[in-house]
């Protein structure tokens, strides 16, 4: 480009520029080799250095006489680089005759490390036999720093990913452990299986609404003495660990109280006093509803004595197909008042008759927007199946619960006791 006011150069001046260019070109190949901005090196096939340029000698801080014929290429490398050279570089070069851009470090005379990129080519003779190795060496300090940064970032990213993965696994393991613990705890709140009661048939079902929230329903059945058996079923307020601890307290209080005084009213009164003392006095009321019963199987059937603290009424399926509710008027939530009234009722179960205790998960199940299943529907359901053995009834009710699907949003406990129907008297031929 020509500046304003400048005259075009006379043709003679062009000749002068060419002369300067020519003098540059006169730079000999030898000088180009020695002073090139990269290192040059030729070695014998065994690596012995035969020729090396000034640039590389300068980088290394070595005298030519100390190198040529005295050192091998690998000697210029750091120890790690030597290992890499022997295990990767040299074999590859032998096999394919050429290698480019290998990252190595030279060790300078002063002890410094010089990151370089090395390319080598095998020169072959007329018969294809390898003669020598030509190598160029580029200063790669900047590039290496960049690569190291990339590698560092990659390592960091891998580490972060590994840590995230570890955290995810730990969280999963924690969740699994918690689920295990909850399942164990849940099992401690209700018996694994009911004992056999001579002259009675029993059946239970427990529906857990949510695996991670401990439910608050409970039941039990245990012997009082040779003739009588106690049983109870109930529902504590709330959900989760606090409900579980309340359930546990309730279950073991009722068991202990019954052994002390087997009257059903006495067991619930004791439970009321315990819960009231433990919770309500501190301003943190917790309570339960419960039915506690004592059953005594006899030759003609079983007598049943029930007491209830605010629990939905028990139901009896009679042998003639009738269904009765057994209300216990006057009973109150257990644990609310210092002296809570307890309601009681008695009945007799004839052969083929079944008593059902249930929690309100069953009657409160949602059957439509704003609709709950309700006591009347339950009664009608039972009437449609009476008479029924405890197992038949529980099986039918389990099917009913399954049919509620998501509408069943609370834990539900079902306990049925019954006197087996009289066997047909027809004798089998011998």
């Amino acid at each position, binding site marked *: 480009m020509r500046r304003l006011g400048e005259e075009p150069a006379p043709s003679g001046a062009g000749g002068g520029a060419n002369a300067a260019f020519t003098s540059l070109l006169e730079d000999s190949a030898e000088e180009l080799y020695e002073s090139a901005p990269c290192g040059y090196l030729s070695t014998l*096939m*065994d*690596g012995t250095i035969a020729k090396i340029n000034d640039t590389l000698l300068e980088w290394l801080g070595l005298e030519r006489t100390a190198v040529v014929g005295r050192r*091998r290429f*690998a000697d210029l490398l*750091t*120890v*790690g*680089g*030597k*290992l*890499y050279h*022997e*295990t*990767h570089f*040299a*074999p*590859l070069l*032998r*096999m*394919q*005759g*050429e*290698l*480019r*851009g*290998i*990252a*190595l*470090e030279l060790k300078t005379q002063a002890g410094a490390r010089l990151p370089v*990129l090395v390319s080598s080519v095998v020169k072959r003779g007329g018969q294809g036999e390898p003669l020598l190795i030509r190598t160029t060496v580029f200063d790669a300090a900047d590039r*290496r720093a960049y*690569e*190291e940064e*990339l*590698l560092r970032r990659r390592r960091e990213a891998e580490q972060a990913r590994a840590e995230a993965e570890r955290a995810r696994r730990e969280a999963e393991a924690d969740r699994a452990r918690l689920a295990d613990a909850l399942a164990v705890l849940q099992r401690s709140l209700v018996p694994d299986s009911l004992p056999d009661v001579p002259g009675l048939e029993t059946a239970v079902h427990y529906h857990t609404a949510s695996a991670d929230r401990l439910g608050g329903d409970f039941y039990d059945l245990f012997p009082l003495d040779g003739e009588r058996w106690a049983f109870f079923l109930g529902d504590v307020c709330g959900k989760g660990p606090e409900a579980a601890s309340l359930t546990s307290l309730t279950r073991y209080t009722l068991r202990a109280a019954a052994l002390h005084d087997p009257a059903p009213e006495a067991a619930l009164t004791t439970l009321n006093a315990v819960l009231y003392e433990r919770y309500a006095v501190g301003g943190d009321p917790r309570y339960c509803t419960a039915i506690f019963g004592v059953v005594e199987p006899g030759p003609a059937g079983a007598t049943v004595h029930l007491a209830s603290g605010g629990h939905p009424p028990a139901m009896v399926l009679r042998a003639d197909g009738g269904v009765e509710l057994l209300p216990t008027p006057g009973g109150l939530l257990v644990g609310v008042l210092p002296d809570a009234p307890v309601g009681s009722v008695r009945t007799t179960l004839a052969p083929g008759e079944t008593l059902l205790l249930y929690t309100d998960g069953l009657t409160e199940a949602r059957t439509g927007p704003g609709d709950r299943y309700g006591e009347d529907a339950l009664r009608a359901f039972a009437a449609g199946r009476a008479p029924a053995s405890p197992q038949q009834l529980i099986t039918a009710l389990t099917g009913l619960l399954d049919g509620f699907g998501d509408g069943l949003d609370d834990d539900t406990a079902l306990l049925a006791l019954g006197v087996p129907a009289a066997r047909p008297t027809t004798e089998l031929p011998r």
Partner: protein
Amino acid sequence: MTNMDIRSRNNVTITGLADAPTVILAHGFGCDQNMWRLIVPALEERYRVVLFDYVGAGGSEPSAWDPERYSSLEGYARDVVEVCEELDLKEAAFVGHSVSAMVGVLAARTVPERIGALVMVAPSPCYLDDDGYRGGFSAADIDELLESLESNYLGWSSAMAPVIMGNPDRPELGRELTNSFCATDPDVARVFARTTFLTDSRADLADVTVPTLVLECTEDVIAPREVGAYVHAAIPSSRLVTLEATGHCPQLSAPEATAEAILDFLAAWH
């Protein structure tokens, strides 16, 4: 894993005379069975030659890689044992280069009926210097090697790949070497490097009872002459041959001499 076909897992190749005694060739750290390419022709004339890649190297099955198993030489020895069993080898001669020489020692101990002779090429039972023992390296040196592997990961993947892919002089090599070197996952190389250079197998040498050839080079940075002498002294049934070769890979730098030494030894044994 147990159902995986061992032959494809270890990329087993079999050449040479089908009815002749078997020689099995095991590569060392950094390479694969291509390392034997220059001496295989000489061996093929007289023997059945079995080549394979350790899991993690060359054309082995990548999904078989197990960092735990291959963190000890026993893991690599199991590869050898499994290949021997798969081919039902009896009294085979095992030729192991570098770290593979020690892998062969372990394998021969496990299945003595299958391995009848050992050829240890540039072996070293311990690369680290130890009280009174000169292995040649310090732990810091090994860390440097790991760094070199790491820093060449970028080099291999970017700069090296095209070079190796297009090798106009010897196109038959290009493809295989691509597989051999570019496919080496740096994580795999790191595990193999640590196992190779940080294992001390000196005590295992005492278990060698089979005829053994120790091949060393006159100048080997990785396995110095002292180490060759040490191995020879530790194995009473061994012969030591020093090849006029430099570097750690005499099968590449002096293939004729290497093949000749192996053939002489095998002929004497048989």
